[in-house]
């Protein structure tokens, strides 16, 4: 079995996220890291590999992004991926979700994976959607927000929480599965793995290499124009108490609640 894990670099959660007014796109400068949700996808791949139910020949981390995205691939490899693929091309900048999913699907096609895993959402764009886009292009069954996954008789048995409770779904391979963060506790990479990550094979792929139709990607090729922004209706900021003396803090909370007649 060959598993591809889609990963993404995102602004470090501690850094304030903002829109670049000159381009109308998210300002992706500053500290970046591997999307935390993707670490669960890599861990899920590693658990299948180490689980012994099926033989996994390779786990490959795949990303699309500028040069800096290489760091996310190094992190993915340090967590256990065998090698990585970096789709990078100026023509891809500004792609919307549908265009990004198409470009990733073209890149994945060349790897012919049996299973594509990804995190259920990214820390920046918060899309639940990329997995479903990729799956439709690849012609594979797909499920998102999966919190338990077992390989049984060459099929996946997946559990997830949906609108009316927990669903159990059997999915034939090859398939595209987005995992939720409850699926596992990702491991920490060893120092040795971190040091060795840069030595593992990393293939740089251009849009042309992947056979991507340039008319379908980038800001021009995207079907959604989201270049205009506005401020949300302002909400009065709440009161903040830094707890230094807990007795005093509690006194303040009780007074606040009492003032609003919430203790009667």
């Amino acid at each position, binding site marked *: 079995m060959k598993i591809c894990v889609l990963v993404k670099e995102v602004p470090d959660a501690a850094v304030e996220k903002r829109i670049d007014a000159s381009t109308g796109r998210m300002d992706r400068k500053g500290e970046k890291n591997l999307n935390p949700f993707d670490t669960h996808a890599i861990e899920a791949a590693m658990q299948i590999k180490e689980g012994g139910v099926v033989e996994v020949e390779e786990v490959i981390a795949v990303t699309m992004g500028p040069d800096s995205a290489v760091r996310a691939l190094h992190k993915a490899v340090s967590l256990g991926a065998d090698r990585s693929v970096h789709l990078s091309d100026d023509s891809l900048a500004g792609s919307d*979700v549908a265009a990004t999913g198409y470009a990733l699907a073209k890149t994945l096609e060349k790897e012919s994976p049996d299973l594509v895993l990804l995190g259920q959402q990214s820390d920046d*764009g918060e899309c639940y959607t990329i997995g*479903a*886009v*990729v799956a439709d292009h690849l012609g594979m069954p797909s499920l998102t927000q999966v919190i338990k996954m077992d390989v049984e008789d060459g099929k996946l048995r997946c559990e997830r929480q949906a609108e009316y409770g927990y669903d159990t779904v059997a999915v034939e391979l090859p398939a595209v599965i987005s995992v939720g963060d409850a699926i596992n506790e990702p491991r920490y990479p060893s120092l040795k793995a971190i040091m060795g990550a840069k030595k593992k094979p990393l293939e740089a792929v251009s849009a042309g290499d992947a056979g991507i139709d340039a008319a379908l990607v980038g800001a021009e090729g995207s079907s959604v124009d989201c270049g205009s922004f506005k401020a*949300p209706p302002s909400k009065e900021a709440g009161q*903040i108490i830094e707890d230094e003396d807990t007795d005093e803090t*509690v006194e303040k909370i009780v007074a606040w609640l009492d003032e609003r007649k*919430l203790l009667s």
Partner: protein
Amino acid sequence: MSDILVYVLHYEGTFNKNSLGAVTEGARLASEIDGECHAVVVGGDDLTDELCATIGGHGATKVFRATGPEGLAQPVVDVMAKVIGDNGHSYALFGGGLLGFEIGAGLAARLKAGVTMEVTAINVEDGKLVAERPILQDSSISESRYRSDVGVIIGRLNAFETKESGGGSATVETVDVEFSPFSEKATMVQRGEQRGEDVNIEDAPVLVAGGRGLGKAEGFELCEQLAGALGGAVAATRAVVDAGWYPYSTQIGQTGKTVAPKLYLAAGISGAIQHKVGMQASENIVAINKDSNAPIFEFSDLGIVGDLNKILPKLTDAVKAKKGG
């Protein structure tokens, strides 16, 4: 003419409230762009003519009905692609929920259409729809305009109010669809399993909600004691429900319940959008979190930066003393 097609989810013979909200919104928008609002349903024998026609009460003039598996996205993508291909709808609209995201995204790929998700408002501009989507933890709103023939709009949970339009019954048209081979490769083994005891949190005037910051399942005891003192009930985030710390029936947010109590006290909850959509209508929101950067402080009325293990027990005692006094 610009018609809008709305996917309506159902379970055990009842249509989803968020889907009916999307029909209400679709009907409002259709009237402004000189079109009609249609609905599409996919399922088994429980989708009778009578049941489907009732969607007309929310403003749909026609309901397309196809027979197919329930609770899975890809068969619905096949159905909607065919309905839109045959009838030329300009927009596909979804209420909040997990299936809406999956179907909308798959449909966008299939039709080479633009898609916008987490939409909280839709406006009409020159006869076209413009979707508003809050981004970056709701600190900015992005406006989406569509260049494609079809625009896919996926609402955020509870974004669209469900209203009876006073309209009559909708006409029902049965659609025969050949499913894509890969659509039949995912099969439902069990749907709608309830895990844990059934707790009613929707009617409680006060909710004390616990998240990952409680550290462990036993941390919920602190929430239960405070809820007891305040005369309320205990709720939970998805993360801790999925982790098995608390019953599913107490879950707030995207795939859980939507609540609006007089007081919502969030303990160890970061305040992700998926949680926020289920509780932001609460009258008073109090948050306790040790991370001063937690998004929940952006929409709480009173925020306490501190260790909940120290604060909750003392708060419980103080509330008891105050109420008893």
